[in-house]
C-alpha cells in the first residue's frame, strides 16, 4: 500500500518536473528574465550606492523579439568580448546615426547597418561601445523595463538620454518626431 502511494507520488513528481522545467526555461527565454546588476557602469541610475547594494532589474525579453529598440532604452546585451557575460547599458545611437564618440579610435562615426552604439551612464568607468565599437543587434538579450529591488526605488524605467549624449545626425528624424 505504502509502496503504491510512493510510486504514485514519484510519477506525479516526474510528470510535474517535465512540465515545470520547459515552461520555466521558455518563460525566461521569451518573456521575462530577472537579473542582478553588478558594477558601477550605470551609476547613478543603477547601483547608486556602489558595490554594497546590487539592484535587481526585470528584463523584458518579449519586447526585443524583433530586435526593436529606441535611443535611450536600457538594454542587456551579450558582451562581444566574452559570450558568457551579459552587460547592461543604454542605447545611445541606432543604425545610420552619426555620433561623436568619447574615447573610440574614430572621433566621429556612422553606426553601420544592424548595429547599435551603447554606453554606460558612468563615463570612463564603463566598458562599452567606446572601447569595443558598435555592437550587432543580434547580441541583444533583453530590455530593462523595471527596477524591482531595492523596494524603495521600485519604478518603471523611462526612456531617456543623457543631456550631452545622443546622435549628431539621426537617420530616422521624421519618425522620432511623430512618436513623441
Amino acid at each position, binding site marked *: 500500500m505504502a509502496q503504491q502511494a510512493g510510486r504514485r507520488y514519484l510519477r506525479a513528481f516526474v510528470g510535474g518536473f*517535465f*512540465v515545470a*522545467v*520547459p*515552461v520555466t*526555461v*521558455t518563460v525566461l*527565454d*521569451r518573456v521575462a528574465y530577472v537579473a542582478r546588476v553588478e558594477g558601477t557602469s550605470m551609476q547613478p541610475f543603477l547601483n547608486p550606492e556602489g558595490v554594497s547594494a546590487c539592484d535587481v532589474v526585470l528584463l523584458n525579453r518579449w519586447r526585443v523579439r524583433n*530586435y526593436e529598440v529606441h535611443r535611450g532604452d536600457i538594454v542587456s546585451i*551579450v*558582451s*562581444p*568580448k*566574452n*559570450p*558568457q557575460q551579459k552587460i547592461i547599458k543604454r542605447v545611445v545611437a541606432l543604425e545610420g546615426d552619426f555620433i561623436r564618440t568619447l574615447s573610440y579610435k574614430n572621433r566621429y562615426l556612422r553606426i*553601420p*547597418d*544592424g*548595429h547599435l552604439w551603447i554606453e554606460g551612464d558612468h563615463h570612463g568607468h564603463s566598458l562599452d561601445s567606446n572601447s569595443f565599437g558598435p*555592437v*550587432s*543587434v*543580434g*547580441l*541583444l538579450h533583453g530590455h530593462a523595463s523595471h527596477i524591482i529591488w531595492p523596494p524603495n526605488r521600485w519604478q518603471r524605467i523611462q526612456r531617456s538620454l543623457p543631456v550631452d549624449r545622443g546622435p549628431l545626425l539621426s537617420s530616422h528624424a521624421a519618425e522620432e518626431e511623430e512618436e513623441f
Partner: protein
Amino acid sequence: MFRRALGKTLGLVGYTVQYGCIAHCAFEYIGELVVCSGPSMEPTIVDNDVVFSEHVSRHLFKIEKGDIVIAKSISDPHMNICKRVIGLQGDKVCTSGPSDIFKTHTYVPLGHVWLEGDNLKNSSDSRSYGPVPYALIRGRVCMKLWPPHRVGPMKESPTGRIIKTKPHSDWD
C-alpha cells in the same frame, strides 16, 4: 455543460502551452533542421540542402576550428548565414583571398570567431565584414539529411584556409 466545455478548453490551452514550451526548449537547446540556400558553401553544401544543426556545443562553448556553423548575420539579425569557422579567438587568420599576391594576416579578437564560406570566390564573409561575435552563432551543422544520395556527416574544408597551429600539450 458550460463548465465541462470550459474545463476542456482550459485543458487544451494547457497542453498547447506545455508542448509549445517543450518545442521551444528542443529547438533552442538541442537542435533543428535548416534548409540552406545560396552558393557560399559549395561544394560542401549546395542550394536547398537540408542539414541538422545541433545547439548543444554552442551552449557548452565547444565550437572548434573547421566546424560549419549557422550564425545570425552581423548586419541583419533576421537573416542566418552558414559558414565554416576558420579561426577562434586569438588565432591568426589570413584576410586576403587565395589569389592575392600580398597576404595580409590579422588576429581574431577575444570572444569572436572568423567565418568563411567554402566557395571563396562567391561568399561574403569575415573577409568583408570582419570577425563575428561568438554569441551570434546559433548552432553547429553536424549532418546532411537531404538529398538522399549525399546523406552523411560534414566533410573537411576543401580550401585549406585553416592555419594549423601546434597542438597544445597538456602542461602548458
